[in-house]
């Protein structure tokens, strides 16, 4: 059972306190987008064996959404950060680069 630290309330929360929300940092496509762009937004998701950025909600805690950088294979958590982020914080990015030299990098 995963343990993720909620960046708002600082609690190291059990997975049972959290609700998973899928891939993070999606760019919302809407009216005016091409079919292919909209399809990408609506359906296409990363499914990496390794570094992944994802949405979680501290559903049975403070209720806030936050983002996590996590290795899907080893379940190592590189860090959690507020949902109001266009991209992962530099510190987390650097940590991932250090720990996973093969990582293809952010975006």
């Amino acid at each position, binding site marked *: 059972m995963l*343990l993720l630290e909620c960046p708002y309330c600082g609690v190291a929360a059990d997975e049972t306190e959290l609700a998973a*929300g899928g891939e993070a940092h999606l760019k919302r496509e*809407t009216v005016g987008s091409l*079919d292919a762009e909209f399809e990408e937004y*609506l359906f296409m998701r990363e499914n990496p064996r390794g570094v992944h950025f994802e949405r979680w909600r501290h559903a049975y805690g403070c209720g806030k*959404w936050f983002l996590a950088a996590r290795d899907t294979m080893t379940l*190592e958590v590189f860090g959690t950060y507020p*949902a109001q982020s266009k991209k992962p914080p530099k510190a987390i990015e650097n940590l991932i680069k250090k720990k996973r030299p093969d990582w293809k990098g952010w975006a």
Partner: protein
Amino acid sequence: MSTRLATGGRLLDRTRGLEFTFNGKRLRGYEGDTLASALLANGQTLVGRSFKYHRPRGIVASGAEEPNALVNLGESGRFEPNQRATTTELFQGLTATSQNHWPSLEFDVGVLNNFAARFLPAGFYYKTFMAPRAAWKHVFEPIIRRSAGLGKAPKDRDIDRYEHFHSHVDVLIIGGGIAGLQAARAAGASGAKVLLVEQTASWGGRAPVDGAEIDGQTAEDWIKNALVDLESKANVHLRSRCMGAGVYDHGYALAYERVADHTPGDGRPRHRLWRIRAKQIITATGAIERPLSFAGNDIPGVMLASAVRDYIANYGVSPGDRTVVVTNNDDAYRTAIALKAAGLVIPVILDARPEANGALVEEARDLRIRVEVGKGIAKVKGGKKVTGISICAQAGEGAALEDIACDAVAMSGGWSPVVHLWSHCGGKLVWDETNAHFKPDVDKAPTNQSGEGFVKTAGTASGAMSTGAVLQDANDAGKAAAKAAGFSAKSTAAPRVADVPEQPMAAVWSMPQGAGIKKRMKMWLDFQNDVKVSDVQLAAREGFESVEHAKRYTTLGMATDQGKLSNINGLAILSQSLNAAIPQVGTTTFRPPYTPISMGAIGGEARGELFQPVRQTSIHDWHAANGAYFEPVGQWRRPYCFRRASESVEQAVHREVKNTRQALGLLDASTLGKILVKGPDAGKFLDMLYTNMMSNLAVGKCRYGLMCNENGFLIDDGVVARIDEDVWLCHTTTGGAERIHGWMEDWLQCEWWDWKVYTANVTEQFAQIAVVGPNARKLLEKLGGMDVSKETLPFMQWANGVIGGFDARVFRISFSGELSYEIAVAASDGRAFWGALIDAGEEFGLMPYGTECLHILRAEKGFIMIGDETDGTVIPQDLGLEWAISKKKTDYLGKRAQERSHMTDPKRWKLVGLETLDGSVIPDGAYAVGQGRNANGQRITIGRITSSYFSPTLDRGIAMGLVEHGPDRMGEVIDFPTIDGTGTVIKARIVNPVFFDKAGEKQDV
């Protein structure tokens, strides 16, 4: 025959005798016995029948690894099958019965399978029952179900209670042998919070039986002192009868405490599941002895050498008068020495190694025990019990050299560390050639959220094979774990031990080495699943080369013991058959729990009324006292209808519908979701959330709105009221309140986080009561306090005021098509306000109504219901709700998706009303068929029923449904075949979905 010795038994209290029964036979034991030791003490060596061949089986082991001695334990509310006799503590009045035999344990008809063993090889089921299908269902399956399988399923409700404990510790240590105790001392000295759990009732593990000397004390004394020391430390917590069941991600672990298994009915919970978060976990889980594979190694009386020693030392039980010891290592000589000390006869020790000169071997020789090296067992003689053995040369094919009479055999094939808990969460293993076992690869520990190892092993579980090495390893593990958990370790030294030097063991996978097929068919690898050496070899020959495939094909290592005895021996045979090294073949996956744990413990307190919280409105008690027939709606309980005297449910519903249409109905609508949305950007936000415009709604007005997801599909609906310049109140469906509130928060927190909007789910803050029907206004005017006239409070408006002395917010909205007021009062006033309405309403023909009446009223009006007309694939346009979709807005959630080609396809099924030609009610969900068949030969479907009711108002069946080109086919009759097997086809005419008051005049008066 096994029996109780006159003296000995370190765990027994011989002053406290206990009575118990086995298969109805009254037997006696002592406090401290396990069921297994007590059975052996009573000479009961035959304890069960094997799974497949129904061969007689006896007790093999003394602990959790026991494969054979599984019994039905207890009766009625405490009945439980498949309980291991070796881990069941004896108590006064225990009742046990043996399993898997008919008609009796002594005489079992199923043993015929044994004589047909040649025809029941690995994969027998797969090969035999391929065809025909009917034969499987009617012949093979019923027979197999009766003859295979272990215990019986309980029939009665479990009368015990169970609970969960949550614990957070720095270091969790699993296993209370000397390694666990020393690790706890080392870790505890640093100040770290330590939890030490031990699966049995006694501490110290094997050390007192094996006779180690530690720090100049006997093992027994050292353990006693260690316990005193640990119990004096506030930061160390000890639990016996508590098994480490599983190790999971990020330091999560489960432990299973058998609190009251040995004291049933004393009021304590029977089992307790510990849900533990540990920074570090040490598995000090010891090792399990392996059987040897020789012909007849499953006959009752053949036991593990260590188990024989345990029964003598711990329980004062002799397994037999004459015990042959057969081994490939020095350790088994301890058993011979223990037997000798107890005054029993050891006709011979057969050592498969070419030579044996270790200290223990010489001690045995000095005791004048006959030792034969390079020898093994050609076969064991006997049926329901051992009567003798034939000796052979280990190197040969098994020609008998000498026959020896004996009534027990103690075997030892070496020791395998218990690596289960290390492996549960991904710890890797390495093959140790010297000891022929897998042990933890310390460089590849399971990793935690920081990517660092969080499991360490201590003692024999690490592969340390002498007492000195065990304690050194445990001391190091304890210190390392404390350090990794953030404490500075004290420099505790490991205790001093003078180890008895042992000579290396020799791997023996088959005895004798060159055994022919007849012998290999009698060499059991997995006693519980009846898998023999020949079965694994067959699986390899037939191409099941992966260890995971071979396991499933042969069933090796399955069922309740999960291969604790069979795993390594089976792997070795498989690797030989494949001409591959054992590490290349690898092991199967170790999965939690370590041994089976009870379903009750997993459920804990979450049963009966505590299984799920039930939500009740503030008016619930009135409903319950007035004939309410409840139905679950989400977590709520809502009245489906209110039955009177001798009424059926259906009669009650019909009465409620008619009364509401003709006079006055009262509905508890408190469960309706109520979400306040407030802020300078609230209007903008709601315009994105709803398909229609909400920002231009005037204060004091109400508007019906639809919400879609980004796929364009309808997810919720409800009336929105504008309360103030920057405040809107959004009503949601009963089941949707929490989901929609979460949905709003998702968009506000993750997409439009710069918008100034605040949301609050106030569903439970209000009781909401719908006053519905032609007499609604009369009732409110009688109660008085505010003007509810059409002029002051017209349809689709709301007002604050006082009614009958209650502060209220009154909405002129209608889900029934009748004159209707939905009145919200504080939840604390709900019950009183309801009572006031009931009392005042009598003269106007007031009757409360339930959810089914609500459904019929709305269906008669063609109003959609989320979950009936929608199923996650329906867009508003399918339901003819274009009028509720804003053309002016540039964007809303779902708008882009509704432009996709499939969503604008004219062939999408659309909402219509359906009237059966004969007035009957079409089954809900029925499909309409068109001309022709699809590629699978099935009838083409052109529509389906989404809601179907008998309408008391119209006195006929009415339905709503989605039909291809439906709105363009008004008046057409389409076919709904029934699925009741009669071939009946219901014919229905496509009509307007509004069946009643098409102009909507009744609600707007």
